[in-house]
């Protein structure tokens, strides 16, 4: 009698345990499924880029100017150079400000201004990039009297600054305080300690952050629409409008012409290759030691 009750209980318990484990495995499977579903678009986008864009990427694409609708051939040489020019100028403006602000925030941790700046950088990362486009339109384009390379670079720089500020700060805070103390004990002034010991130790992390920020602004379109605007020809001065890969792809993609749409796919392929090369390259070099800037 006792025996049967015990065995019934045991069977019941085993059944329950089986169900609980089944449920657990099911949920593990579901999270894995979610990850797979999340990654499907990545492979679809990359696959379509290759299949639709690769055929239009040729020597002309990198060396020729765009041609009007109806003509065969043509390329995006000016847009490719334009993107590099805009990103380069933006980095010249954004990197020093970002690094300086980041050093300040890290070195004066906890002080009122430092906290305010840190918070401002966090918030700025969340400002829609098109809003920054409007801001630059109001403070650069309108006073100067036209769309310009300079305006586009300023817009990209403003997007870049908070990213660089936050990574610089995070990387400096990772430097062990003993290093700083050792330098100060030797009688090295504060500023030399900061620059030659603390910042130097954090250099690779800061560089990673800068490259990720560059990758990010390379792919920006919205802030360029009414700052750098676009140009069908070569831009020869900083006060002229300038073409960029992103704006060119945007314009061609929404056009009704098949030849332009093909060019858009090719442009998108080149753009994605540049951005992913930066992203993958920097991670490969640092082996994920530095955290990505968001």
């Amino acid at each position: 009698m006792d025996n049967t009750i015990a065995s019934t209980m045991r069977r019941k318990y085993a059944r329950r345990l089986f169900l609980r484990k089944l449920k657990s495995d099911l949920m593990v499977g579901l999270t894995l499924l979610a990850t797979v579903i999340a990654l499907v678009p990545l492979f679809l986008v990359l696959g379509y880029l290759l299949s639709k864009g690769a055929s239009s990427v040729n020597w002309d694409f990198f060396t020729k100017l765009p041609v009007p609708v109806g003509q065969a051939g043509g390329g995006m040489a000016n847009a490719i150079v334009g993107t590099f020019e805009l990103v380069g100028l933006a980095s010249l403006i954004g990197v020093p400000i970002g690094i300086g602000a980041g050093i300040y925030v890290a070195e004066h941790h906890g002080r009122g201004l430092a906290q305010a700046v840190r918070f401002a950088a966090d918030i700025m990362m969340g400002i829609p990039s098109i809003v920054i486009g409007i801001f630059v339109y109001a403070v650069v384009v309108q006073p100067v009297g036209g769309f310009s390379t300079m305006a586009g670079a300023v817009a990209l720089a403003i997007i870049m600054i908070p990213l660089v500020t936050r990574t610089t700060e995070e990387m400096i805070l990772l430097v062990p305080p003993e290093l700083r103390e050792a330098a100060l004990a030797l009688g090295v002034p504060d500023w030399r300690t900061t620059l030659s010991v603390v910042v130097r130790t954090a250099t690779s992390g800061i560089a990673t952050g800068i490259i990720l920020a560059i990758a990010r602004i390379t792919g920006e379109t919205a802030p360029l629409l009414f700052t750098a605007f676009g140009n069908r020809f070569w831009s020869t001065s900083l006060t002229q409008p300038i073409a960029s890969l992103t704006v060119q792809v945007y314009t061609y993609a929404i056009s009704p012409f098949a030849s332009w749409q093909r060019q858009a796919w090719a442009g998108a392929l080149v753009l994605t290759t540049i951005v992913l090369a930066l992203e993958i390259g920097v991670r490969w070099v640092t082996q994920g030691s530095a955290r990505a800037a968001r």
Partner: protein
Amino acid sequence: MFNPDETLNDRFEFVKERTASRIFHPRSLGDPLFTGIIATLAVIVLALLIGIAIELTVKAMPAIRHFGLSFLASTEWNPATDEYGAMPFIYGTVVSSAIALMIAAPLSLGVALCLSEMAPEWLSRKLGFLIELLAAIPSVVYGLWAIFVLGPWLRDWVEPVLSRYLGFIPLFSGPRVAVGMLTAGVVLAIMILPYIAAVCTEVLRVVPQSQREAAFALGATKWEMVRMAVLPYGASGIIGAIVLGLGRALGETIAVAMVIGNRPVISASLFAPSSTLASVIANEFVEAVTDLNVAALIELGLVLLALGLILNVVARLLVLSATQRRFSRVA
């Protein structure tokens, strides 16, 4: 060199002065200079944020004065008659973001759980890397892909099914087109998913190991451990991550402008073309003729900025409260 007139005290003062100038020279000049420079750069960051808010408000003033609060409620947007109202765009922004969140939030929570709790370390690192790549693809590329691939696919495969089984709801009825609210929502979902997933993963990684061990020690299965120990602990951070994703969805411009159809109307159907705050700015800003038109567009940008600021502050506070709890508890 001995000077008989010099007292010992004079000599002492002279040496003290000379040493002081030697020792303190580098500090007295270098430190304030360096601090001054980096403080100036830091102030620039702060000034930019304040400047953006002020400049947009000033430039939007003509529209704010002309329309007052009715700007936000009016559904009329007509550059031909110089009548402007923000409602169609607020509606478009809210609905497209809501679609995006409904798809992306559960998926990214799943991804985060997979990365932080379920998958072994080596797999988790590889999958995490791929998810980060998803965030790296430029939005104009997503837009291009959505115009030519995703939009037509949704029109041919998803919208027929939705209208067949849910067609009695006005949201899922009406003519099926490739460009519209639904396509925009799905693209947004793909774009914000990696951000929500990344913040969620970070939040979950902060959950102390002791919490997990305690649940396992009580005999919990893996899922029971997640449900009892991990999710409650990370709840506020997860919500913060979702709010952060919402902020991104609201402000995303180019991909949305490419697929939403850009019609300043409120339609009952999700299949119909619509417009968002960001997309209308992208489309019409350069072509705006009258001053009032420009001001109205800038006011839309101001609305966008305000929404973005509020959501970001809320989200950061939530995430901060979740990730910093570890320190306060241990300490």
